[in-house]
């Protein structure tokens, strides 16, 4: 841990003035905004339902299916891009710190950023619900939001996304090309649409975040379990692969 903290502290400073940092707030905000306008625009349609539930499931679905996988792709590519564009790997790996700590710090930083986004998402849901209840009284925001449920769902989605975090961190650090990193992420998310209908879709990593809030307990458990375990395995193997390579 003593060797990891300096690397983490160094990583955090690099985020200053970056798009990657802004995206931590922008990405969940876009999802909230989208769901806000859906409810605002179609208030009459949703009038008879539990509005907090509609808001929560709507936000979580858009977040888990589309935004989160693409957001992870973007964040990992932007963070590694800082090093690729500045030709900084040679400088970092020539410092008197273990190479694994550079890799681990990068991964933990992006994991931290996605966690903050998840918190922003939950806070945004509450804020959007409160605002909608004022603007659209016909929506049934009478009771308090089910905070436990909101946090639970967001946490499960986050845990299931670890495999994507670990995988995209490896891809973005291993290869210099932003296009490659982005392409892999977009392709993975795109094929999730088709994989969702297939029986083996439950093993498709880009579906893990949305499967984590599935109504099927089996799918839900599998997504979270594979998300965490797969993430840990890819993190270790990816780190091993990157740190033993020649540094350009």
């Amino acid at each position, binding site marked *: 841990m003593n060797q990891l903290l*300096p*690397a983490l*502290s*160094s990583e955090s*400073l*690099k985020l*200053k*003035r*970056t798009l990657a940092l802004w995206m931590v707030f922008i990405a969940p905000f876009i999802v909230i905004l989208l769901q806000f306008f859906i409810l605002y625009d179609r208030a009459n349609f949703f009038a008879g339902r539990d509005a907090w539930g509609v808001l929560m499931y709507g936000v979580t679905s858009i977040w888990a299916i589309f935004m989160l996988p693409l957001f992870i792709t973007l964040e990992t590519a932007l963070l590694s891009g*800082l090093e690729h*564009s*500045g*030709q*900084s*790997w*040679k*400088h*970092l*790996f*020539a*410092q*008197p*710190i*273990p190479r694994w700590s550079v890799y681990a710090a990068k991964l933990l930083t992006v994991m931290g950023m996605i966690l903050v986004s998840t918190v922003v998402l939950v806070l945004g849901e509450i804020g959007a619900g409160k605002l909608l209840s004022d603007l659209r009284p016909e929506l049934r925001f009478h009771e308090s939001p089910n905070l436990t449920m909101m946090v639970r769902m967001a946490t499960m989605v986050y845990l299931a996304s670890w495999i994507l975090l670990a995988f995209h961190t490896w891809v973005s650090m291993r290869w210099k090309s932003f296009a490659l990193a982005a392409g892999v992420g977009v392709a993975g998310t795109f094929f999730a649409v088709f994989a969702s209908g297939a029986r083996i879709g439950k093993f498709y990593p880009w579906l893990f975040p949305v499967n984590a809030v599935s109504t099927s307990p089996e799918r839900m458990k599998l997504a979270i379990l594979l998300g965490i375990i797969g993430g840990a395995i890819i993190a270790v193997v990816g780190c091993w692969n990157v740190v033993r390579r*020649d*540094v350009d």
Partner: protein
Amino acid sequence: MNHTALETVGLTRSFGGLIAVNNIHLNVEAGSVFGFLGPNGAGKTTTIRIVLGLIKPDRGRVMLFGQDLSSHRLSILGRVGALVETPSLYNHLTGFENLEVTRRLLGCPKENIENALEIVKLTEAAHRLVREYSLGMRQRLGLALALLNRPEILILDEPTNGLDPAGIREMRALIKQLPAQFGITVFLSSHLLSEVEQLASHVGIIHQGTLLFQGSLNELHAHQHERLVLEVDRPAVAMELLTQQGWHVQREENNRLTVSSQGRKDAAFINSLLVREGLKVFHLSRQQPSLEETFFQLTGEPTAGDPT
């Protein structure tokens, strides 16, 4: 007695069947400025990357401060500062913040940043974004990054590459002051012979992955054979006469000859020989070959011209 700061033993590394460095034995004395000279693609950067542990050699080992790099990487790197090719900088951060990023990794005191900025004369520009820096300022910031840890040895790979003449002059002046002022051993690579001549006390010449010469600049000079330039009335006769005596003679224009010689005694001997044989000697001078010519002799290639 001088001790060795950096030593490489039989370093060999190839890329896809092409040998980049071949059995390199370097010996860099502590307190010296070692110029690692060679044309582009000679294997300088590969050697430096191996020395910094960025790539692994196929064979051989690197010793720094008497310790093996493969088993003491972290403790060794803590005593090394390096600037490999272009500096590794984050354009969206200020100069100060760039140094702070590395300082946090090193865990050294904050005052090291101020000191490094002062040495490279960037104190005033420290809080400007690096994307606004000139090439020369970027290179100096790269040097500040290398100095942040107060290293015992500074490894610089082509530190003046791409700089304008003013930038080159500034960078060289900075590098020159380091050994005397801070006791830092400097190992710098360059393809510019004049740069090495200006900065280095010792030189290693590498070509096509092979180390052709290693020693002090004085030893390199001693390695060179001087020439006698003669102007005589009958060059053909003089040439025959000197060749018979075992001299290596070359015919030049305007009745001139050049003779490979060992020094002033040879000049006196040749002069008296020619006069005794009835030739008229109009001109006789001793010429030291330039380092550039020596480099050419060793590598078989001319060096690039120095822009300054």
